[in-house]
């Protein structure tokens, strides 16, 4: 088991080190993309905590991402808060909404849970549009350069932005890794595999699922708030249904229930859409086709398949 732990730490720290080195090698365009991918990967990791580990397929995660985005953006843009306070507010908004949605939606399971989360997210999206005078609706808010300074670091600079994205990603990855190796992580998986049996063993499914969902919301909120700070834009489009589907796609592609899967899926999908938009404008077709192909031929994603084919130690 000790050898396994060493391998796991070596792999994940290796990935982080490679990402740290990548900014020195990669041209500016790809470094910018990678920063974006890392922030989106945090969102996907949050989705994975709910979907991949606990078995909660939510179709409304854009609500939590949007909560992070606007929870940060509104106080910063309208009330002149600092970036640090905005970040905390965004994370809290994501977690708080996840708690509220979880308290209601977790009374239902399966298909009903998916539809309830979808409906709540849609209501949230419409609410943002309804308060267009404050939120600027589809047009969005541009966060001033001056407001995007965190602990003396100007986040609008390419290099600091990359490092900030990496720091967030690293923190999220390590917490995720520690979580799934902890006893609580195992209870989450137990809920996914057999809820009745876990209940019989004395675990309260509602509380475990609620905790997982709130954690997932915190991740999504952190990702949303960071996205707004790093790229200086807060818009209603990020709360639309499409942004609920994207993390699902990332997680399915990379491998549900794996720690590195969300990052791998986000990176591959980002470049797939990026490359295909050079050839055709129909990038939604790529998203749709990818979903169909994944669900049909590789429901476990890349890392999930690798794990089945011999890399059993992969967390």
């Amino acid at each position, binding site marked *: 088991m000790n050898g396994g732990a060493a391998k796991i730490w070596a792999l994940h720290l290796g990935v982080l080190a490679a990402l740290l080195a990548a900014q020195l090698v990669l041209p500016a365009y790809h470094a910018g993309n990678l920063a974006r991918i890392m922030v989106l990967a945090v969102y996907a990791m949050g989705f994975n905590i709910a979907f991949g580990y606990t078995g909660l397929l939510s179709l409304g995660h854009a609500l939590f991402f949007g909560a992070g985005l606007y929870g940060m953006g509104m106080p910063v843009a309208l009330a002149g808060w600092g970036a640090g306070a905005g970040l905390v507010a965004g994370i809290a908004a994501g977690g708080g909404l996840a708690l509220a949605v979880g308290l209601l939606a977790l009374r239902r399971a399966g298909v009903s849970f998916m539809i309830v989360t979808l409906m709540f997210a849609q209501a949230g999206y419409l609410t943002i549009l309804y308060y267009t005078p404050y939120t600027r609706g589809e047009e969005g808010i541009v966060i001033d350069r001056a407001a995007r300074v965190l602990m003396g670091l100007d986040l609008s600079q390419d290099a600091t932005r990359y490092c900030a994205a990496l720091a967030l990603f690293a923190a999220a990855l390590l917490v995720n890794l520690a979580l799934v190796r902890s006893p609580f992580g195992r209870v989450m998986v137990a809920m996914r595999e057999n809820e009745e049996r876990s209940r019989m063993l004395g675990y309260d499914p509602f509380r475990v699922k609620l905790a997982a969902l709130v954690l997932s919301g915190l991740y999504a909120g952190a990702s949303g708030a960071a996205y707004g700070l790093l790229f200086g834009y807060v818009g209603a489009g990020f709360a639309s249904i499409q942004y609920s589907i994207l993390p699902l796609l990332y997680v399915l592609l990379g491998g549900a229930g794996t720690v590195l899967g969300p990052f791998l899926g986000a990176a591959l999908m980002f470049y797939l859409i990026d490359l295909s938009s050079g050839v055709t404008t*129909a990038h939604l077709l790529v998203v749709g086709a990818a*979903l*169909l192909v994944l669900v*049909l031929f590789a429901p476990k994603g890349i890392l999930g398949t690798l794990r089945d084919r011999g890399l059993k130690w992969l967390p």
Partner: protein
Amino acid sequence: MEGLVTSAVLALTALGLALVFGVMRVVNVAHGEFFMLGAVAAWFVTTWIPGPPAAGFIAALVLCPLLVGAVAALADTLVLKRLGYDPDATIVATIGLLYVLQQAALSLYGPEARPVEAPFTLRVQLPWFGYSGYKLAVIAAAAVVLAGVWLLLARTRIGLVMRATQIDREMARAFGINVERVYAGVFALGAGLAAVAAVLIVPIQQAHYLMGQDPLLLSFMVVIVGGLGSLRGALVAALLIGLSDGVISVFFSPTLAKILATLFVALVLVFRPQGLMGRRAA
């Protein structure tokens, strides 16, 4: 009057969704796209067929549901069947289908909204105000189709087989029913109903590649409020929602009305999953 037209079309669309969910236990997120496909196909058919608008329209009314039904049956055989009708996997797959169909319509048909001419422009003139004859015809046609579906389900062998499959898939298979063919047929019928609704509405609205979104959300509301899988509940709910849609938007802004309706439906599903009608899901 407007409310009744909305209700009629909504009832057809939602019935398709309820049928698919009831018999197959599949949440078809791509249902709105079948609606859109019907409308777009209606535009193509009416444009290609020469002669008076009525001829083209009747051709569309017959051809489009068949076409959309065929697409749906194909999707069922190629995708849903291979997933073993697992609820999680099918919902993801139909989301994929939604994007594929939407993008296909955008690429082949274009981003414009295009009108389809109504087959006739009769106005029913009453002493105090007039009615558009076509809208009355839409309501009548929807009622006929709904009655037809009800007869099919309640009185024929096909309906019997469908209900048997719904109640117990394994037992139905044991009695020699080809469950896979029933599923393909139900999926096609559900999509076909959406297409009929779309063809009927297209002279009033216009055909557009994004037009599937609203019917999808409204149908979801109808099916949830009526009780998941209950066809009679869906019908009553369609009438209610279609009529109240107009009334609510008189008092509130449309966006606020949508927010309230969405939250209401979500709460119904949380607290009364059997629907407001209080019946157990049929």
